[in-house]
């Protein structure tokens, strides 16, 4: 460590606890309490990165979240490494490893830096304009751009850290722990309001914490000493919660806010393990007080981006808070009074202040007079026209300004320096206010946007509200807080305040130079490398809106979201276009205020908690029997059960054949089940299904098709009448929740007069489906008391039965065209009933089959699957299911839409069967169908929706939707694939057992 850059009498940094860390592979030392940036500066390291476009050397420029240059990669571990973190916000810890980004191969030797010499040909939108053509060269460009300009590396392994989410409710949330935030929080808490104060730094106090200057006093104490006592007094307040290291990320409507608390980022590597790294607080506050302070602005002049050029207030924080000198011979350049505070602090700490260059005419405020008393040289009405030094600034060039400030006059003065502090005034941090929907107003006297109107119960106080001087900050905060909280008990009403007042104000957005603008590099957005020239170019090329200029020049679009550059961009646009800034409006600030880790956003919702996995009561059996599973919505369904080395095709062929030749068994528990009761249950079904239900006898089942009001098929399933006023409806597995919601909607809003109650019972019942010519024999073994004879237990009917005294419902229904029984039993008995059936079926070679075989079997019979053969554009008529539309019913959901001009078109896409000329050729689902491949453009007539090789028919079969398909039966079509055209013939949709003989086999 370069000891001469540290001052020793410092109360904030523990200089007894030395910490080792690595930057770009080099071992360095800092102290507990340092940020990575302060430790680097103490080691005389300014150069920390390269700029995005020109790869110019860039150094640490700020001390906070607005840092545009010191963007580093933290950590080498492939699962823990984190890109795009700001060195100014990383608290130093033992074992920290960080490296520069955006420089290849190294920060000191950077290949991309040749861009700097070519910069005349790299104007705004260069990337857009050049790399767009020729199109197939993009791959080459992309490699080059990514390699030389990539902003950090993503981790390649899963994040091993733990993240958390928590809710928080309070009366008052105070954002920002500076002087005004502390006063507001204390006032709220003392008035019995449940108060939370959050601060993104590790200590409260803001910049006042280290403001020890004769010009700023409260009740005869230095402002910092007074504030420290206030901070100490907070701990006695019971209803005040203080959260430091907590950054407010987003402020949404209804005072809903997200804040990220850092819990372990500052801990030594070996203390991080096993602890929650970050917590995302979801806050709902009755009232919100924003006290987020202000950001210092840079000044825009030629070569204002060299390492060693730092915001003046940051230089002050480095010396007064961290005890770090940013240089030994520091020059300052300002348009306002605040740089003099820095000059005084530096001077008192023994740093040589060369001079203050001030663009204003001589002014006599308290603080300026104090600086003069200390012998600090001031260049009034002057500007810096250039800086020199490649990897670090080594001198500045100063010239007098003309009276109107648009040009420079007189002789150039060269001043040697190793650091330049710049101050362009202050920008209130109104980001959160605007995120919450608040509207800003422009204040002409100091060119700032301040909060105006908001619809929420919120208040902005302190410098984020445009109060920059100590007396204004305190007096205005006290008054507005009292009013906002409707309280009188405030400790701060009669404070005696001394504060230097700024008398003279002057602002020039783009400072003039002795060279023409074209020969200068006045940087605006340091991270994205856009200059004032780029803004002017965009305006010349016709861009007017700030949002467009921003995108064209990429100003304000880097990871810092233009915190430092937005105001200057606006100012230069306003100046060039000759409009008032207030009329120009600002760009929108979007959350998050500072980048959030993905970990904080997802919290615990990772891995097995990412989504719910629903398993049937029989799931364990499927696992034991080596089933492969497929996801159907959240359900894990058995897909097929490979035997030995069987692949999926082989397993499905075997299962499908067994179900038709002997018997198969399927777990159908995932089907949606809705219990429907009430005196109007039959009428209700009449209204929601296309077919008639009033005459369905008790104990009978019926297939129903449900439409949307637009006439399109929505869901289907079998509903059984269990009693006079009691039905059980089944829905598709994926549609269950939506069908219930839709039915509830109609019941509550359109037909409240109906006496009907709906209950989801999907999870309450397990469903075992036994299917095939031998199914009857198995069910009779499992339920010996049940008469299964065809005349006693007909197809499409249901019986209550007992298995070992356990009640079950047996439905004789079929989705395969085979004789089948579905046994519904309370979930907890599902697995034992399944095992009983399986045991009973062993002598018949009972074969468990999964969803794939079920799909194949139903396709052989031409049964649709909603969502596979339909896509929200198919009517029952399109599906050739006219038979299910009741002609007698006056109304049902979707009925009127079935004869709209569009739905009665005869050339709609309609469901048909497809047979390939080569019976071995299986079509791909989704493949297009054409009639004439030679007529260009080739007309796509439809597509394949379901396709299988049927082992029972020993040929390939498919379902498809084809334009005008009904009339094309027997016609030849082509299915063009990558390497060949497949010849197909349009057929009927039923491929097997058209006469339904198997149902009664």
């Amino acid at each position: 460590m370069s000891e001469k850059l540290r001052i020793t009498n410092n109360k904030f940094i523990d200089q007894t606890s030395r910490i080792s860390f690595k930057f770009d592979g080099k071992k360095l030392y800092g102290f507990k309490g340092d940020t990575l940036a302060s430790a680097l500066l103490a080691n005389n390291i300014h150069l920390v990165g390269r700029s995005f476009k020109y790869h110019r050397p860039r150094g640490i420029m700020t001390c906070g979240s607005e840092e545009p240059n010191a963007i580093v990669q933290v950590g080498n571990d492939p699962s823990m490494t984190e890109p795009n973190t700001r060195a100014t916000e990383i608290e130093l810890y033992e074992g920290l490893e960080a490296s520069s980004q955006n420089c290849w191969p190294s920060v000191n030797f950077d290949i991309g830096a040749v861009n700097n010499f070519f910069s005349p040909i790299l104007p705004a939108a260069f990337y857009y304009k050049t790399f767009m053509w020729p199109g197939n060269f993009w791959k080459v460009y992309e490699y080059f751009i990514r390699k030389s300009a990539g902003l950090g590396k993503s981790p390649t392994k899963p994040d091993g850290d733990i993240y958390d989410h928590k809710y928080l409710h309070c009366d008052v949330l105070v954002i920002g722990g500076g002087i005004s935030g502390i006063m507001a929080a204390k006032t709220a808490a003392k008035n019995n309001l449940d108060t939370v104060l959050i601060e993104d730094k590790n200590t409260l106090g803001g910049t006042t914490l280290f403001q020890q200057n004769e010009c700023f006093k409260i009740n005869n104490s230095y402002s910092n000493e007074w504030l420290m006592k206030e901070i100490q007094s907070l701990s006695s307040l019971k209803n005040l919660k203080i959260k430091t290291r907590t950054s407010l990320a987003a402020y949404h409507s209804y005072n809903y806010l997200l804040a990220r608390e850092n819990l372990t980022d500052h801990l030594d590597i070996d203390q991080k393990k096993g602890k929650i790294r970050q917590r995302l607080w979801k806050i709902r506050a009755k009232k919100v007080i924003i006290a987020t302070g202000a950001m210092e602005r840079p000044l825009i002049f030629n070569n204002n981006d060299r390492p060693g050029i730092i915001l003046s207030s940051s230089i002050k924080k480095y010396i007064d808070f961290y005890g770090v000198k940013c240089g030994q011979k520091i020059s300052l350049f300002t348009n306002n009074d605040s740089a003099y505070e820095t000059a005084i602090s530096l001077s008192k700490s023994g740093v040589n202040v060369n001079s203050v260059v001030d663009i204003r005419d001589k002014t006599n405020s308290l603080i300026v007079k104090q600086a003069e008393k200390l012998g600090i040289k001031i260049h009034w009405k002057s500007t810096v026209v250039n800086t020199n030094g490649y990897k670090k600034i080594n001198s500045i060039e100063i010239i007098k300004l003309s009276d109107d400030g648009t040009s420079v006059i007189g002789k150039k003065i060269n001043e040697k320096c190793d650091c330049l502090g710049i101050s362009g005034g202050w920008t209130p941090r109104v980001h959160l206010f605007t995120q919450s929907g608040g509207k800003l107003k422009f204040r002409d006297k100091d060119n700032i946007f301040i909060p105006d109107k908001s619809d929420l119960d919120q208040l902005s106080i302190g410098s984020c509200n445009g109060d920059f001087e100590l007396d204004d900050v305190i007096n205005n905060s006290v008054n507005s807080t009292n009013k906002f909280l409707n309280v009188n008990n405030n400790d701060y009403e009669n404070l005696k305040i001394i504060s230097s007042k700024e008398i003279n104000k002057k602002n020039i957005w783009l400072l003039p130079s002795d060279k023409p603008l074209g020969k200068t590099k006045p940087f605006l957005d340091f991270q994205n490398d856009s200059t004032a020239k780029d803004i002017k170019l965009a305006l010349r090329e016709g861009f007017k809106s700030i949002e467009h200029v921003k995108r064209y020049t990429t100003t304000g679009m880097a990871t810092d979201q233009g915190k430092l550059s937005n105001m200057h961009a606006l100012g230069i646009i306003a100046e060039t276009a000759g409009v008032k800034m207030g009329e120009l409006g600002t760009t929108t600030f979007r959350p998050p205020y500072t980048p959030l880790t993905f970990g904080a956003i997802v919290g615990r919702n990772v891995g097995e908690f990412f989504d719910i996995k629903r398993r049937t009561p029989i799931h364990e059996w499927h696992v034991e029997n080596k089933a492969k599973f497929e996801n159907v919505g959240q359900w894990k369904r058995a897909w097929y059960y490979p035997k030995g080395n069987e692949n999926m095709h082989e397993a499905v062929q075997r299962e499908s054949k067994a179900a038709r030749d002997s018997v198969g068994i399927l777990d159908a528990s995932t089907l949606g089940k809705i219990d429907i009761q009430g005196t109007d249950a039959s009428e209700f079904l009449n209204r929601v299904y296309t077919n008639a239900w009033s005459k369905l006898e008790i104990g009978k089942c019926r297939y129903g098709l449900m439409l949307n009001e637009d006439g399109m098929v929505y869901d289907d399933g079998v509903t059984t009448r269990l009693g006079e006023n009691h039905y059980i409806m089944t829905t598709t597995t994926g549609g269950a929740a939506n069908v219930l919601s839709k039915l509830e909607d109609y019941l509550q809003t359109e037909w409240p007069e109906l006496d009907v109650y709906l209950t989801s019972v999907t999870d309450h019942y397990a469903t075992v489906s036994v299917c095939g010519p031998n199914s009857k024999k198995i069910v009779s073994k499992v339920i010996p008391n049940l008469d299964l004879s065809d005349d006693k237990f007909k197809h499409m009917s249901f019986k209550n039965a007992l298995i070992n005294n356990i009640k079950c419902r047996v439905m004789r229904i079929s989705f395969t065209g085979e004789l089948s029984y579905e046994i519904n039993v309370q979930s907890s008995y599902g697995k034992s009933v399944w095992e009983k059936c399986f045991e009973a079926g062993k002598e018949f070679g009972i074969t468990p089959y999964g969803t794939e075989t079920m799909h194949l079997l139903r396709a052989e019979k031409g049964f649709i699957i909603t969502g596979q053969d339909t896509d929200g554009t198919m009517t029952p008529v399109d599906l050739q299911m006219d038979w299910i539309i009741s002609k007698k019913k006056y109304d049902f959901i979707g009925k009127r839409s079935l004869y709209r001009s569009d739905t009665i078109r005869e050339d709609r896409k309609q469901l048909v069967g497809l047979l390939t000329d080569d019976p071995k050729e299986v079509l791909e689902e989704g493949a297009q169908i054409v009639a004439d491949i030679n007529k260009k453009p080739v007309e796509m007539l439809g597509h394949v929706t379901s396709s299988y090789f049927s082992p029972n028919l020993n040929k390939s079969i498919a379902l498809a939707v084809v334009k005008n398909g009904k009339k094309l039966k027997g016609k030849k079509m082509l299915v063009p694939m990558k390497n060949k055209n497949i010849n197909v013939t349009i057929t009927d949709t039923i491929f097997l057992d058209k006469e339904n003989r198997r149902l009664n086999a």
Partner: protein
Amino acid sequence: MFLINCPYCGERDQSEFSAGGEAHIVRPKQPTELSDDQWAEFLFMRKNIKGVQFERWNHIHGCRKWFNMVRDTSNDKIHTVYKMGEKPPIK
């Protein structure tokens, strides 16, 4: 993220609710007697107001009740909520 005052449960987070489009569109009692245009008016045409709008909401992850809401779409201010079947408050 709104804070919605369910008429049955009280104030709850927006994440418990789902929006159901424009309110007070009554399903015609005699759809068969409507022309294509009249039916299309019911089926497809919805207002998209900047300002005060009447909306349907469902407390889907709560009591599952549908209710109506008067909301200003320009600033998301919820003026009032009321039960299904109740008369809309006059603007």
